[in-house]
């Protein structure tokens, strides 16, 4: 009976040692739901939360992609419009001959093609200015050529950045670019017309400025979105810290505590072994002749 008891106590003691060792090896308080159902269930929910936060962070990367590319493209359009403005001023002087104006018109034609190229910017396989129809370019061909067409999808592209919060990441490319292209078309017509005077040409300056304003408005909208994304990003990184901490508090062991427990258990186990060795051995048989 003593032997049985000792064996049972020893194996219990081994079991506890094993438990602590497993906790130390995995760093987790539990390895199966029945160890602590509440921790297990909470654990599933916390993992879920953490995965969510990490995914939204990835989505925000994509948002940055869209906004930065669009901003970069619009920057190029801005430079082009500046050049157009200079050219219009140059052409509006009455000393400019119709030939000079024709050359300027040619340059504007090239600038127009450049802007069409920019409008068809493709980032990561997506046309970023054609609304949600990202498989197709905004413009097909170049203005003045046969077959030139505008696709012009104006839907928002939305990306979820937090539960239920969606950001539309694109700007209305159709309105902006068709405005600019139309304005440039008008300019070309005026410049190619030998009857145009300096005054008629300079009156188009206000149109150029109007398009520059439209461009600026689009860029400031992008800037505002950028700010919003950055705020969301900060919130998400705080959330990540909180979610990680909650998960860790829920299921991770405190190493110092577990190691102390393990050592205590180890000494209990040693004591049990040595006591066992003492009580098991002698019987009356040992003392009889």
């Amino acid at each position, binding site marked *: 009976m003593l032997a049985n008891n000792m064996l049972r106590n020893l194996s219990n003691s081994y079991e506890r040692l094993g438990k602590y060792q497993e906790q130390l090896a995995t760093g987790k308080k539990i390895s199966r739901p029945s160890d602590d159902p509440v921790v297990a269930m909470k654990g599933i929910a916390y993992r879920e939360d953490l995965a969510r936060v990490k995914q939204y962070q990835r989505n925000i990367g994509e948002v940055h992609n869209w906004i930065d590319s669009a901003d970069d493209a619009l920057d190029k359009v801005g430079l082009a419009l500046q050049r157009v403005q200079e050219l219009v001023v140059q052409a509006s002087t009455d000393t400019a001959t119709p030939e000079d104006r024709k050359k300027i018109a040619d340059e504007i034609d090239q600038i127009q093609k450049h802007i069409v190229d920019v409008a068809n910017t493709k980032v990561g396989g997506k046309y970023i200015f054609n609304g949600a129809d990202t498989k197709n370019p905004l413009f097909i061909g170049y203005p003045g050529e046969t077959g030139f067409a505008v696709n012009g999808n104006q839907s928002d592209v939305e*990306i979820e950045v937090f539960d239920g919060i969606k950001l539309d990441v694109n700007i209305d490319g159709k309105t902006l670019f068709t405005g600019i292209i139309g304005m440039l078309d008008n300019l070309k017509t005026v410049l190619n017309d030998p009857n145009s005077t300096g005054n008629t040409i300079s009156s188009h300056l206000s149109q150029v400025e109007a398009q520059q304003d439209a461009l600026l408005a689009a860029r400031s909208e992008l800037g505002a979105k950028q700010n919003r994304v950055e705020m969301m990003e900060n919130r998400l990184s705080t959330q990540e810290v909180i979610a990680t901490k909650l998960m860790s508090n829920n299921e991770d062991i405190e190493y110092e505590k577990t190691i102390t427990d393990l050592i205590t258990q180890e000494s209990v186990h040693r004591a049990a072994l040595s006591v066992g060795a003492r009580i098991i051995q002698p019987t009356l048989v040992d003392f009889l002749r």
Partner: protein
Amino acid sequence: MLSTFHGLEVAKRGMFTQQSALYVTAHNIANANTPGYSRQRVNFVETEPFPPASMNRPQIPGQMGTGVEAGSIQRIRDSFLDYQYRNEASKLGYWSARSEVIAKMEDIMNEPSEFGLSKAMTQFWESLQDLSANPENEGARAVVRQRGIAVAESFNYLYTSLSQIRDDLGQEIKTGLLEVNSILKQISELNDQIKAVEPNGYLPNDLYDKRDALVDELSKYFQVKVETVPSGGNALDIAEGIYEISLVNQDGSTVKIVTKDGYSKLSVDPPVDPVNDPTNPDGYVSEIRIEDALGNITTISYDKFNDLASGRIKSLIESYGYGSDPNNVKGYYPDMLADLNKMAYSFATMFNAQHREGYDLNNSNGVDFFEMNVSDNTTGKGAAASIKVSDVIMSDLGKIAASSKSGESGNGNNALYLSMIKDVQITNGSATLPSSSGTTVSVPITGGTVQTFYQGLIGKIGVDGQQAERMKTNAETLATSVDNNRQSVSSVSLDEEMTNMIKFQHAYNAAARMITAIDEMLDKIINDMGIVGR
């Protein structure tokens, strides 16, 4: 007048009796480590004094003792402790089987971990979020498809593995009952032997021990009640008689399984042998049949299983499944399998409905994303085993309907709605899709979300497992403590046997010395007396 050799006879009886006590001591020491052995002792009885009361008694003063004899050899056992032990053993059998089956289930569900169903669902959700950010991207689509396959395969794996374990449980019930039947047969045979020995005035101690060990074993499987019937004839008062054993129900009613006439055979109906006998593929037990020695059949039907007090068989049947027919099966594993079906069916149905609302890369409406063979829409039976990503999606990535509007390849709204499916609130078995269409889908899950439903499943396993483990530990502690008590009564203590040995040896030696003394006395009479003047 006393006989001259009276003293010799007394001393001889003493020697014989002490000798038999020594032999019994030797028997005890030899069996010190035999499981189920109870130590034995010789009941010393004084022999009839001389002279007895009678008309022709000799006129001597007082009655003279005539020595000792071994009245009987009895085993030391407390039947009340046996009773206690067997009660605890059947509880232990019940809870340890319970805790084993739940531990297996926990191993298969493998939660919380990086490899369980919840991880697969989370990864699927992540891929759909990625798709919503890059809806035109073939790579994102391929990931959604692969993660979709992973979810489907997780369901398949869980369902198949759990069914496998359930089949194993069926085998275990079968072998358990075979074991029980063999025990009953052995007990009955021992009853017969005991019935043959006892009427001769003997105590078949070693047969008693064997029989009690078998009843201990039996009590792990069922809670039993033991009654004794005297075997008649010249049996001693302390003879234990024949065991009659009955199954005990919770209300205290009993069904006899061993009587003095023979033993019953236990089986379950329908037979549970999924491997060799596929007639019962869904695995359920509708009744326990008890066929007695005369061929009469008593049954305990499924709605009375709760009445069985405890024991391993009850626990196994509860885990395996029981009910009136294959469509009404309750039980731990069947419930879990049914819940997995419900979850798979609810998720896939909602997902498909949302997928059909979207548009694929070719601007046509979505098709079903998941396919499954379901025999019953209200329970989703068959869903978890058969769910897979549909062939259309498998052959063409472009068929994944990520867009909520025709012609917009950059629109990822439907992918976003798809990602919300697992968190769609279900009320009274009906769920409204996350898109603005307002379409409702009826699903087997009655409330909460797919995600919380699964958390609930895991939580239930956890709580049940913890309870089973706790009850098992309690029953184990009680059984061990009763067994300790029992052993302190019945087991062989070498110290005690050694003490007895010394006691009996000295008594034997003393009796032998008595013979020497009487020998000297007789020598005096025979050789030294009456030689005056010779």
